[in-house]
């Protein structure tokens, strides 16, 4: 059984650690990390296609939304499920995230325990969906 290949595009090392912890609890999941949008595009271009992308849209340089739009344009990448995370609670930003066309969007909770359980929920949802 192939592992669930998750690409996390996240610039906060603290969050990366939590993502790895929550997702790799299940042995079937493997997490790769891109620290910014440019690196992400590079990895998508040259490395294996991931099964799931976790995207923090508040990325510096190439914005998360812009990255998403670019992915949509590329037919190879267009159908990869994306979970969008936003740390800003501003209604404007939330609306942007909502309308991005992602499979799911999450406002990163302040409470770390809640964040971890959300990540686990995401893991369980997508692990179940992997074709055996």
């Amino acid at each position, binding site marked *: 059984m192939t592992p669930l290949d998750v690409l996390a595009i996240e610039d906060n090392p*603290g969050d990366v650690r939590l993502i790895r912890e929550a997702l790799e609890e299940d042995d079937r999941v493997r997490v790769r990390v891109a620290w910014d949008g440019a690196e992400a595009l590079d990895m998508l271009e040259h490395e294996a296609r991931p099964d799931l992308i976790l995207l923090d849209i508040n990325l510096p340089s190439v914005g998360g939304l812009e990255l998403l739009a670019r992915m949509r344009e590329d037919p190879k990448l267009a159908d990869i499920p994306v979970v969008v995370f936003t740390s*800003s609670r501003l209604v404007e930003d939330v609306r942007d995230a909502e309308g991005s066309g992602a499979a799911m969007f999450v406002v990163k909770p302040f409470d*770390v325990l809640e964040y971890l359980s959300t990540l686990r929920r995401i893991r369980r949802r997508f692990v179940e969906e992997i074709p055996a």
Partner: protein
Amino acid sequence: MRYLRAQAILVPVAGLVVGLLLETMIDGTGIGLVRLGVPWMFLMLVRRPSAMLIGVLTAINYGGHLLASHDVAFSSSAALGDLTAVLVSYGAQLAWRSWPGGIDTPMGYMRAAGSLTLGSTVGAVGWWMTMSHGIQLPVDVVTADVLGVLALAPLVTSWQRGWPRNHPFKMQGMLAAGAYLLIAWANMFPPIPRAGRHMLQAAALLTISWMVLRAGRRFTSIAWLGSIVFIWVGMEHGITLLGHESLTLEEAMLTTRVTLMGLGFMVFGAVFGMLGYQQMVRRSAVSEERSRAMAAAAPDAMVVVGLDGRVRFANDRFVELFGDVAGSPLGQCLPGIIEATHAAEPSTCIVVDARREDGSEFPVEVTSARYNDVDGSPLLTLSVRDVTERREQQHELERFASDLSRTNKDLAQFAYAASHDLQEPLRTVASYVTLLQHRYAAQLDATAGEYIGLATDGAERLQALVADLLEYSSASTQELGVRPICLRAPAEEAIGFLEGQIRKSNATVELGDLPTLNGDGVALRRIFQSLLSNSIKFVPEGRAPCIRIWSEPSPEGTVVMVSDNGLGIPEEHRDQVLEPFRRLHARHRYAGTGLGLAMVRRLVERHGGRIWIEDSSEGGTTVCFTLRGALRRIA
């Protein structure tokens, strides 16, 4: 000058010619007009002393007497006597140097009459003594001379001053001269029967009186009338007596006394008239001086222009700005201004471009007023202000305002960006401290737990602050999308957002009449949410918050009110509390970052409205705000 010299000779010549004509028609009638000689010569001398003029006029006088009386001795002595009279008069005129010169001032007028009275009396006395005529003739002569100077002086003055044809004083002068001539002629050698003579004299008297009354000097006219009546009576008496060869001293004295009384009246009347006139002239001079002084002191350039568009008067400031423009057309420094002032409302400012001597242009503000000249012609007076500096200052101010607005926007954007970027690291700190507490609880003692607890609190507070700062700065930087919104919608939305808090505190929120106004939906929701949140939070322990939201009309637009039954805000703090980071209560009692009301104020002001705080009827706070239709451009 030349003009006046010609007149100086022409007038007595004309008198002579007419007199001679009359003489040829009716014997003895012409001499009256020759009597014009003395006052005329005197007036001309006062105007401009000239030996040639004396010579010519004396010759005319002698010739006239000769032709009229055919008596050489009589004519020579008459001419000599007249010359003496004139010279003595002129001498008196010069001697009284303390009195103003010329005859075109009231005091000068008086001086002339006085001088001539003296001179004429001297001449007449001399004549009387040499010629052994009755005293009546010299007295008549003196009277005639003085009357002559009083009547002719206004005419000469009007010539000197160059008054226009229809100037009232000129008219009066001519009428007076005519009336005088009539009296003089009728009195001196009357060929007409007594009744006719009286009528002529009466007519002449009435004319003079009317002239003086018209000039408004009532007292003078009454005095003149009175004096002339006396003179007339005196002369009548004298002429009747002339018929008899001998004249007793008493009769002579009576005649003299009556005549002198008449003369006295005349002088008296003239003095009063002159004093009144003098006062009028002085007032007018003061008024003119005042205008001149005001024009000189005025900070603005002032100019008076006639119908023809030429400059009649320009004050110093005008000359400074445009150079010496007297007499030049105004259009060369203020093109088109006269048409513009005609077109504009009176007392409005017109801004036009003025042109300097060197051709360079600059903006000016012009106000105008009209008035009429002495002769009735319309004049336009303009006040011109150089507004170059003001325009520059205006531009400066606009630049400054736009710079300020840009700076504000930059600051707000910076705060926004900073808060944005602060959130993530802050979350990380809070997260791992919590995990530490959670996962290492067993290894940590009570103190460590306490430390971690305090660290967590600090982190949480910081997170709240950053979140609020983000909201606050977003209130300044986010674009507002204005459309008509029924305020009920954002209010209900805000209530929805605060559902949890409302439930927990058992709060009740009542929505009253709310208008439909132009505004941004999100901004309005934020406003209501912040105000409601405050009302829920700032209540005394144990009290359930009761909040009312409604609106009232007012002269400045609809006022929206959010009223509660909470702690209230004391009057001295009401302005402060709208500032950022201002809190009234200790942190441990009531949490909060002090940014809520500041954000609300920002949003209200960006809508062009106003926010203020009042007491509520339940002892709490009422926050009132207005929203205008248009949004201000300044962020």
